């Protein structure tokens, strides 16, 4: 039965996409990322110089996250993506599920001062199957015109609708709202995941969310919160810091980021298992994650490089000409109360928390 099913899937998928893939050449790489300003920063910093240097053509495709497509390709035995940009939790889960190639971190180039790559990357940036490129964070931002008397300063303010009235935008999902709720309730950054590991802690987080439930508009795509803020639909919203930066700089919106309680996460390169161009994909990873290339990317978007040695090389924005460092989640000024997303905890608890969250939401 299983074999027949596998064969039929393969036949169906092959019949549908076979025509498209046959045109792909061996000397081209298909690289998949999140689109928008973020893909633009990768094209400028990695793709263009790489093509210039090696002659390898790069097809850039967009996706909206998740491993469903990769798993479908791997199971059908017809992998058309060579490299993709994923979140940490997906990098770990994909590796667990055996749908990603393992990557030997020792092949990565050393820092300019000779520090080996394994020491140069920040903690957690190298996993069995993935190499990190950037550090991004979920923060909250508000519209300064809505609070002429002074805006919110802390995570607690976000959950205080009597002090700062108005609708809030939050990501529709348990992560990272549970962390935010506990920070607002006074839990120390270092204790967040210990508290969340107890059922009383989870109840406590949901109780905090209960306080603003009726004032929340939920978002799903990263592009939504800046739009909601611009439309006046909400007065403050959690968002990915790069999206808010883009609205501030490229669109001159009067938004202000509150860095208190920001939750850091990573984006990483992974190679789907069975990629037809694995060697070329590995070569591209080596090239794009060296010190210079990671620093280059920071010229286009306000995400921090995953190498320590790149930090000193961050300059000004490519077109707006402003200094990028203060806008990085990794800037010392912004890091004071930052929390590193605990992917182990989320890999263990995501299913239960998402079900609880969905049940809570529907009530």
């Amino acid at each position, binding site marked *: *039965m*299983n074999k027949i*099913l596998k064969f*039929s*899937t393969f*036949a*169906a998928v092959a*019949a*549908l996409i076979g025509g498209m893939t046959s045109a792909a050449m061996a000397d081209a790489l298909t690289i998949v990322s999140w689109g928008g300003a973020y893909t633009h920063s990768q094209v400028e910093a990695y793709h263009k110089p790489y093509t210039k240097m090696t002659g390898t053509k790069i097809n850039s495709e967009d996706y909206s996250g*998740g*491993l*469903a497509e990769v*798993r479908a390709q791997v199971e059908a035995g017809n992998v058309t993506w060579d490299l993709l940009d994923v979140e940490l939790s997906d990098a770990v*889960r994909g*590796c*667990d*599920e*055996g749908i990603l190639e*393992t990557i030997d971190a020792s092949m990565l180039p050393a820092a300019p001062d000779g520090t080996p790559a394994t020491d140069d990357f920040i903690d957690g940036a190298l996993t069995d199957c993935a190499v990190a490129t950037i550090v991004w964070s979920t923060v909250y931002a508000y519209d300064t015109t809505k609070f002429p008397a002074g805006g919110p300063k802390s995570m607690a303010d976000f959950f205080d609708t009597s002090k700062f009235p108005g*609708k809030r935008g939050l990501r*529709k999902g348990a992560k990272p709202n549970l962390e935010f709720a506990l920070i607002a309730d006074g839990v120390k950054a270092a204790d967040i995941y210990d508290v969340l590991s107890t059922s009383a802690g989870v109840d406590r987080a949901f109780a905090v969310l209960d306080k603003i439930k009726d004032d*929340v*508009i*939920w978002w*799903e795509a990263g592009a939504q919160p800046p739009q909601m803020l611009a*439309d*006046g*639909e909400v007065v403050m919203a959690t968002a990915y810091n790069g999206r808010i930066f883009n609205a501030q700089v490229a669109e001159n919106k009067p938004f202000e980021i509150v860095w208190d309680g920001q939750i850091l996460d990573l984006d990483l390169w992974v190679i789907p298992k069975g990629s037809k161009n694995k060697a070329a994909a590995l070569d591209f990873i080596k090239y794009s994650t060296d010190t210079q290339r990671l620093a280059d990317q920071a010229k286009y978007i306000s995400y921090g490089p995953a190498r320590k040695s790149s930090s000193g090389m961050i300059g000004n924005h490519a077109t707006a000409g402003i200094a990028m460092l203060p806008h990085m989640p990794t800037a010392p000024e912004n890091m004071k109360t930052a929390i590193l997303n605990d992917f*182990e905890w989320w*890999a*263990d*608890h*995501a*299913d*239960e928390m*998402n*079900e*609880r969250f*969905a*049940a*809570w*939401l*529907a009530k």
Partner: protein
Amino acid sequence: MAVTATTPTADDIMLDASGMPLKQALAIAERNKRRKALIMALPLLAFILVSFIFPIIQMLFRSIDNPAIHDNIPNLSREIQDWDERAIPDEALFAILADDLRAAGKLKNQGKVATRLNYDITGSRSMITQTARKLKKKTEGPYKDWFIGLNEKWGEMRTWVALKKASQKYTASFYLNSIDMRYSETGKIVAQPEERQIYLTLFWRTFYISIAITLICVFLAYPISFLMATLPVRTSNMLMILVLLPFWTSLLVRTTSWIVLLQTQGTLNDLMVYFGFIDDENRIQMIYNMTGTIVAMSHILLPFMVLPLYSVMKTIPPSYMRAARSLGANQAYAFYKIYLPLTIPGVAAGSILVFILSVGYYITPALVGGRTGQLISNFIAFHMQKSLNWGLAAALGGVLLAAILLIYLAYNRIIGIDKMKMG
């Protein structure tokens, strides 16, 4: 009886031009015709088989298929079935588990086992991966105390009961999960804890929202179709274009237009504030909730109701109504007695189209549904794309498929599918 069956003699048989018995010639011609029809339908049949039948069979198979633990730690999966569930297993079973996990770790399959067990026991994922990692260095027993010392969950009954259930080759646990049930610590089927119950609520919501949308569509489409069927061609063509224009516009464009119109800072609220119907502070929330889903979906599905209704109404001669009036019925009675029954096939066709389409609708509720307007399809997509729990996604799809088939059968009993008419 006067007529008796007689075998025709050779002279009675009618022959065609070539001398073949006519009956035989007809049979051959008929057979050729059927074969030709079959050949012409063959591409479609093949297409349906590949793109429709096989995926459905595959989905149904996936909803019970449970290879993750069974295939990757095979010896334990076999031996644990004999365990009596009275006390924590003895050293022998721990040793088998250790060997299996070590072997799985070499092939990098421990993650699959871990992910699968984590569906049933939250937190067991890290327990498995951590144990498999440590087992690389621990090459010989005794294992039992070592396991429990590593992670106390190994010393809990529920871990082992769950492992026994989850290691069977086929499982009902995805179906149980999809109707808010689960296996308890003692292996009995019980309801999920209340804070995790979502799917039944979502199934009910999906059905009553779909029924509401169907009713709204009938209500809106009936007068329009009537006008289109009775007005002069020039005007009715104009109306037809108005109905079809949104039909030709991208689904996303139409959905986002509703966002622009209905959001709290949107056109409709602005107008109501401007004319003083509501205060600026009390703008009405009309989108990102169930209202948004119903409004946007009714608009999107309206043409599916208008078109069958129109084509049925077009075939009703106006003389019927005139005849009823001339026989003394007033307008309302004539409509109720003559016109309405004649349009029922159109209403039936439109209703089943709209209902079935809305039960499976995904993108519109995802965009405008907010908190209270999400349908079951959004959660199937969630498990397909985000949680990667394809077994659960398949089981949810299976339940939905079964429900639709039941409704279809009931519909056939009550209204009769042969009465349905597309025109």
